[in-house]
C-alpha cells in the first residue's frame, strides 16, 4: 500500500499551503501513487480546508471588487447587481450542490460579471479610444470571454464526471439513466399499474430503448 507523504505539522501560511497543494497535485497528476494518497489525505485535513476556505474567500473578494467597480458609489446599481448575481448563482447551483460545485458556480458568476464590465467599459468609451487603447480593451474582452467559457466548461465537466449516475429499468426494454443527486420520486403509479419509480428532471435524464 502506498504510504502517504506527511506534511509538516507547523502552521503554514495560505500561500505555502497552496504551493504545497499544487506541488502534490502535479505529482499526483503525473501518476505518483504516494502523491495521490497524500492528496486524498490533504483534501480532508486542516491544510485542505485552508485551501477550500482561501478559494471561497478569494471568490467572495473578487465578486465584491467587481460589484464595486461596476456600481461605483451608486447604491441602486450595487443592490441590483448583487441581486442579479445571487439570482444567476441560484439558477446555476440547483439543489444540493457540493462545495466544489458552489465554488465553480461562484467562479462562473465572477467571470460573467467581469466580462459584462469590460464590455461595458469598451462600448462606453469606444468613440474616444485610440487604436492602441481599443486593442487593449479588445484583448481584455477576449481573455474575459475565454475565462468565462472555460469556467462553464469546468462546472459541466465536474457534474458529468463526479455526480453518480443511476440506471433504472422501467420496462423490459427501456432504461433510464439519471443523475442521482437530481432525482425525485414520482407519486402516481404508471398507467399500466406498475408501481411508482424513480424519474429524473427533463434535462437530467436520458432514456434508451434496448430492442436487441
Amino acid at each position, binding site marked *: 500500500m502506498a504510504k502517504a507523504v506527511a506534511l509538516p505539522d507547523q502552521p503554514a501560511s495560505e500561500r505555502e499551503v*497552496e504551493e504545497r*497543494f*499544487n506541488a502534490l*497535485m502535479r505529482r*499526483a*497528476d503525473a*501518476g505518483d501513487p504516494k502523491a*495521490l494518497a497524500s*492528496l*486524498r489525505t490533504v*483534501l480532508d485535513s486542516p491544510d485542505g480546508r485552508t*485551501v*477550500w476556505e*482561501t*478559494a471561497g474567500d*478569494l*471568490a467572495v*473578494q*473578487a465578486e465584491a*471588487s*467587481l460589484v464595486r*467597480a461596476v456600481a461605483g458609489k451608486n447604491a441602486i446599481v450595487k443592490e441590483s447587481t448583487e441581486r442579479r448575481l445571487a439570482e444567476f448563482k441560484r439558477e446555476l447551483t440547483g439543489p444540493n450542490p457540493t462545495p*466544489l460545485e458552489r*465554488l*465553480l458556480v*461562484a*467562479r462562473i458568476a*465572477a*467571470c460573467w460579471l*467581469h466580462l459584462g*464590465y*469590460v464590455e461595458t*467599459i469598451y462600448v462606453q468609451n469606444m468613440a474616444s479610444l485610440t487604436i492602441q*487603447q481599443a486593442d*487593449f480593451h479588445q484583448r*481584455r474582452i477576449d*481573455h*474575459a470571454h475565454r*475565462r468565462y467559457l472555460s*469556467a462553464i466548461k*469546468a462546472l459541466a*465537466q*465536474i457534474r458529468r*464526471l*463526479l455526480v453518480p449516475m443511476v440506471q433504472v429499468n422501467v420496462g423490459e426494454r427501456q432504461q433510464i439513466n439519471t443523475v442521482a443527486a437530481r432525482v425525485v420520486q414520482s407519486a402516481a403509479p404508471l398507467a399500466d399499474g406498475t408501481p411508482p419509480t424513480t424519474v429524473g428532471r427533463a434535462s437530467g435524464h436520458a432514456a434508451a430503448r434496448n430492442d436487441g
Partner: protein
Amino acid sequence: MGWETRRGREHYCYTRSRRVDGRVARDYLGTGLLADLAAAQDEQERRSRAARVRLWRREQERLDALGAQLDRTYALTETLAAGTLLVAGYHRHARGEWRKRRG
C-alpha cells in the same frame, strides 16, 4: 516645439514643428504676443495630454488588478477541481480531457 535660446537670449524665438509629407517643417513664430499665445496654448495641450495619459494608465492598472484578482480565484478553483477529480480516480489524458484511471 518651444522657445529657442540663441546668442545668450533665452526667449529668442518660439518655434513649432509639424510633419509635411513625411518631413519635419518648423514654423518660426518669433517673439511678441503671438508667440506668447502659441506657447501658452502648447503648454495647455501638453498638460492635457499628460493628464489623459495618467488617466489611461490608472484605468489600465485598475483593470489589471481586477483581472489579477480573478485570475488567482480562477487558478485556485481549478486546482481544487483537478484535485477532486484526481482523488476520484480520474487522470488528465495528454494534459487535456479527464479519463477514469484503469485498474
